[in-house]
C-alpha cells in the first residue's frame, strides 16, 4: 500500500462513526469605517510598528516624493516593481541613482538599497499591506532592500482583515494570486532575550505613500 492510501485509510478507519460538530460561519465583518477612520487607524498602527505613512495628492506627487526619498536615503540602486505608473519615478530620481526593473538579474536586485512597489490592498485595523503577485512583480523589490517604499491608493484601504480575505478570494473561490503576502511594518525579531530589533532579514524600514486621488494621469 502506498503512503497516501495508508494514511488516508488509517484516518478514515479511525474516524469511522465519529460525529463532527458543525462548522461555524467565518467571522462576521464589523461595521464599515469611514475613509478618514481607515487612514487614521492604518497610520496609527504603522507608526507603532516603526513604519511611516503619509498621504500624497496623486500618482504624480507620489513619484516626486519617491524621488525625494531616494535622494534623502542616498540610494545608489533602487529596485522598482513593474507597476506601469512607477515609470514616472525616473523623472524625479536623483542623479546617479540606478533604477532596476523587476526583471533585473537577481544579483543586481540583491544590491538595491531601496525597493519601490505598489500594494494591492491595505488593512486599516492591522496596518497591513497586501501584495498580490499576479497584479505586480514586487516579491523581490518588497523584500530584499533595506528600505521599502510602498504606494497604496486610498480607495484600496480596507477596514478589516475579514474584508481583505474576501477581496483576496476571486469569484470562483481561488485566491486572486498564487502568492499573497501580508506585510505589517518593517521586519523584526525578539529572538535574543525578547529584545525588539527592527530590521532583520527583510526591510529595516517601511514607508507608505497613500495616494488620495488615484485617477491615473
Amino acid at each position, binding site marked *: 500500500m502506498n503512503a497516501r492510501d495508508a494514511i488516508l485509510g488509517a484516518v478514515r478507519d479511525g*474516524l469511522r462513526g465519529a460525529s463532527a460538530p458543525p462548522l461555524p460561519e*467565518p467571522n462576521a465583518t464589523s461595521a464599515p469605517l469611514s475613509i478618514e477612520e481607515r487612514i487614521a487607524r492604518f497610520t496609527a498602527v504603522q507608526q507603532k510598528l516603526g513604519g511611516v505613512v503619509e498621504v500624497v495628492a496623486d500618482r504624480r506627487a507620489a513619484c516626486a516624493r519617491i524621488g525625494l526619498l531616494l535622494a534623502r536615503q542616498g540610494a545608489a540602486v533602487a529596485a522598482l516593481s513593474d507597476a506601469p505608473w512607477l515609470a514616472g519615478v525616473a523623472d524625479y530620481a536623483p542623479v546617479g541613482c540606478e533604477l532596476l526593473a523587476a526583471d533585473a538579474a537577481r544579483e543586481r536586485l540583491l544590491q538595491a538599497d531601496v525597493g519601490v512597489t505598489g500594494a494591492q490592498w491595505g488593512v486599516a485595523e492591522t496596518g497591513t499591506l497586501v501584495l498580490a503577485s499576479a497584479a505586480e512583480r514586487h516579491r523581490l523589490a518588497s*523584500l530584499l532592500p533595506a528600505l521599502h517604499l510602498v504606494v497604496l491608493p486610498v480607495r484600496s484601504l480596507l477596514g478589516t482583515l*475579514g474584508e481583505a480575505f474576501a477581496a483576496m478570494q476571486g469569484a470562483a473561490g481561488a485566491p486572486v494570486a498564487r502568492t499573497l503576502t501580508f506585510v505589517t*511594518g518593517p521586519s*523584526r525579531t*525578539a*529572538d*535574543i532575550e*525578547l529584545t525588539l530589533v527592527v530590521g532583520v532579514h527583510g526591510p529595516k524600514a517601511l514607508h507608505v505613500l497613500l495616494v488620495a486621488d488615484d485617477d491615473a494621469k
Partner: protein
Amino acid sequence: MNSMRPETFAANAREALADATLTGALRRATDTFADRRAAAIGAVPDWQELRTRAAAIKAHTLARLDHYLEQFVANAEKAGAVVHWARDANEACAIVRDLAAARGSKRLVKSKSMATEEIHLNAALAQDGREPVETDLGEWIIQLAGETPSHIIVPAIHKTKEQIGELFVDKLGIPPSSDPQVLAAEARTRLRAHFAAADLGISGVNFGVAETGTILVLENEGNARMTTTLPAVHVAVMGIEKVIPRFADLETFLRLLPRSGTGQHLTTYQSMLTGPDPTGQGPRELHVVLLDNGRSRIVADELMRQTLACIRCGACLNACPVYQSIGGHAYGSVYPGPIGAILTPQLQGMHSAGTLPFASSLCGACKDVCPVKIDIPTLLLELRRRAVEGEPAAAPGAPASLPTRRKPLEALGWRLWSWVTRSPARFRAASALTRLGQKLPFAKQLFGPLRAWQSTRNAPELAKRSFRSQWRGPVR
C-alpha cells in the same frame, strides 16, 4: 543538554533548576510573554468568541480530516504543487533527501518549523552533506551552538545575550558584543550570502487551506519569505492536522495565533502560497510533504483528538509554572511544556515519554490561555491513567507501554483515600484523626514514601475548624 530524554525527566529537571542563569532567563522571558499576551488580548473584545469559533473549526475539521485532506491535496495539485505523503519521520526525510539529490541541490536554507524538528530533518540531510542553514535568528543561534530549540516560538529563550555574544565570537570570529542590535545585524549580513546562493528552501506550514490548496507561513523576520522566494525549489513540511476548511477561516486563526504567541496583533509577514508562482518571481517548484508520524492514531482516539487542534503558539509554555522553572530541554522532547507533555507520549509512545504527563501541577493555566481551548489538564490526567494501567497513549496500534509506572503502595494509598472519601462518616472520622495527629510534635515530618514528596514541599495543614463545622455550628 541535548542528550536529554523524556525518560530521565526528573534528573533533567533537577539539573535545570540548579542552573541559575537558565532559570533567570526563563523567568524574565515567560513573564514578559505573559504580560504582552494579556495586553494584546485585552484589546480584543470578542476574544472568547474567537477561541470558541477556532476550537469548533478545528474539532469539525479533525472529525472529517480524511475529507479535508483529500480536498486540500486536490486543490494544491490543481495549482501545480507536488504533494508527497510520509507515514513517519524516515519517509518524510527520505522524500526531502531524494528531492534534493535529484536536483543536485547543494545549498539549502530553512525557515523555522517544528515539524522538521520533529523528524530531525537536518540530521538526515547532513548524511548527504546537505545540512540546511537555519535562517530564523533564534534557530541559527541554536544551530551555531549545536543545540536544540527550547521553546516553540523563541528557540533560544534559554540563552542570555552574553552567551550569544560569546557564541558569535567563538563561531564567527566577530568582536565581542552582547548588543542584540549588533548580533542581529551580523545575522542579516551572514545569512544574506546563504539566501543569495540557496537552491532549495525548506519551510514548515502554519495552515493548509482545503478549499484552495493554499499554505500559509507566518513569521516576523523575513527569512521565511526569503526561503520561499529565492531558491528554485521550495519544500514545505506539513503535519496532516494543519489543514483547515476555508480560506476565510485564516482570518480567525490569524487573529488568535500572533496574540497568543508573541502578543502581536499580527506578525510582520504572512505568505499565502497556492502552488508555484507562474509569474516567475518565486520558486519553480513547490513540494508539500504531508506528515503523519503518529497523527492518524491520535485522530482515532476521540478524547485525545483535540491534541491535534494545537496551532503551536507556545502560550501554554509561557503560562506553565513547570516550564517557567525548568525550560524546554528538560522535557527531552521536541515539543516541550504542557502541549509537549500530552503530544509527545502520543507521538513517541508511553515507553519513552510516559513520564511527561506527570510533569504538571494540573493548575490549569495552560487550558485558560489555549487559543483553541485544548483541555490539557484532562488529557494529562487521562494519559497518567493510561501510563499507570500500561495502556497505549493513543489508540489503536500505538506502541504499547509497560505498566512500569504502577506502584502498588501508591495504588493502595489511593484506594484507601477513595474508600475514606466515599462515606461522610469515614471522612469526618479521618479529618478528626488528622487534626489530632497534627498536634503531635513530629507530625510535620511525613514518613515512608511520602517523605520523598515532602523533600520539595511543605505538608499541608488542616484548618483548626472545618468549613462544615463552621457552617453548622456558631460562628466563633
